[in-house]
């Protein structure tokens, strides 16, 4: 119960802090506009006609993920600069929960970039928002958000080990977009890379979004992917817990959290 309060409060505090940041607003408003236009231009001669499944979902997901990733990575540094990192790190509630709360705060704000993509697609290109299985789509969308929070949490933990977080962030953001098939299907990747894709839960989440948007042809296939997604996500959660325990010790031994 108390954990939930901490996650919730951290989320609210984070939302207030992120929203006033110009860079965050830029990611929220302009990134989706630009990527929607670019993707539309890319897909217009591709023969693919379901613009919603590729253009809107693609740019929306890219915007959402970029926002979550960059803000969450930078947040640890921002806490460091404001001198609050030491305080939240040594508070009796686990720092883990605070980080999760922060990422959830960023995520909720980031959903707006999805809305921006939708609006741009609708207004500029008159793309039909045609979702064949709206209920399943919504379910998949929520699953996607949860998966993003899990991955971003792991990324944030890893970045506790370094100060050069923004640099590393760039190395993580784009590969995930490619490997998870945000903008084009994973099947187009070279085979060895596809193997990696299969180990990342967001790959399944994105597939679920596309399947439900285009219309589920084989419900078993849908549920298979749901099971895979859940299984891999749970493994990631377990991994994140283990990882945190290791990193929590390591930052204090190496002194590289540089909290004050």
């Amino acid at each position, binding site marked *: 119960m*108390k954990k939930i*309060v*901490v996650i919730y*409060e*951290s989320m609210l*505090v984070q939302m*207030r*802090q992120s929203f*006033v940041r110009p860079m965050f607003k830029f990611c929220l408003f302009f990134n989706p506009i630009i990527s929607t236009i670019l993707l539309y231009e890319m897909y217009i001669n591709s023969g693919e006609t379901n613009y919603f499944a590729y253009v809107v979902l693609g740019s929306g997901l890219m915007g959402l993920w970029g926002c979550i990733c960059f803000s969450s990575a930078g947040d640890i540094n921002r806490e460091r*600069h*404001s*001198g*609050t990192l*030491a*305080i*939240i*790190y*040594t*508070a*009796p*509630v686990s720092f883990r929960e*605070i980080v999760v709360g922060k990422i959830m705060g960023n995520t909720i704000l980031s959903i707006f970039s999805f809305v921006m993509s939708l609006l741009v697609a609708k207004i500029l290109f008159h793309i039909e928002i045609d979702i064949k299985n709206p209920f399943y789509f919504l379910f998949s969308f929520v699953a996607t958000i949860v998966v993003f929070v899990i991955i971003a949490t792991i990324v944030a933990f890893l970045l506790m080990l370094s100060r050069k977080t923004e640099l590393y962030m760039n190395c993580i953001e784009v590969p995930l977009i490619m490997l998870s098939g945000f903008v084009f299907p994973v099947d187009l990747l070279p085979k060895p890379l596809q193997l990696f894709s299969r180990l990342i839960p967001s790959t399944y989440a994105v597939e679920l979004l596309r399947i439900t948007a285009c219309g589920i042809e084989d419900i078993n296939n849908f549920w298979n992917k749901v099971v895979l997604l859940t299984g891999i996500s749970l493994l990631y959660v377990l991994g994140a817990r283990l990882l945190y325990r290791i990193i929590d*010790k390591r930052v*204090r*031994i*190496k*002194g590289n*959290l540089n*909290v*004050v």
Partner: protein
Amino acid sequence: MDKIIEVRNLRREYIRKKGIRNKETIVAVDGISFEVGRGEIFGLLGQNGAGKTTTIKMLTTLLAPTAGECKVLGFDCFGEEEKIRNKINFIFGGETGVYRRLTARENLRYFSNLYMLNSSKQKERIDEILELVDLKNRADDLAETFSKGMIQRLQIARGLINDPEIIFMDEPTVGLDPVGARMLRNIIIKLKEQGKTVLLTTHYLQEAEELCDKMVIMKDGRIVKSGVPSEIKGGYVTLEDAYIDLVGGQVS
């Protein structure tokens, strides 16, 4: 008196990278030992770089010792930190340590949540503490509109939010005006009356002499002298003369 802080042969090294291959080991704290009894005000003095902040970081569970023993309330600061964290708090000097985009009250509310304060008690505690640091009439202003000293006061309030048994203060009067510095000294004395333990560092020797029951003087990571203020003074008239002699300066 029961020993609430026990430090024995405590050592902390930092590895600093020099170029690509070379590494340099810096011994920030070099085998120090001291004890603090419950209800004491304990001073940690020494020149810049003597290792005071490093010692406080280890005691507040922010940093792991390289070697030696570092215990607070009988628990290891590295390994048993969960048993310590809700009973201590710290105040670092300077204008950081608060969220500038939140109001004073919102800051305190958030931090009290992190210390899992009862929501019924929370409001009362926050009002009480804002009064204590004289920020009541600015409670609902954003911290970014505060002066340096006001942020410092808010930090002090934050450090007291969980009614800690032990409060660590690293140069807490830096940046405070004379009235603010006096306010903090009075708070420290009040805390002592309530049976709290305070470990503080300061470069103001007069302040240290006025407040501390006991103190240690550190130099290059080692303790060069410890005891009650009169012991430290030895044959010198002022603490300052004794201090300068101990850290190897020239006493005029």
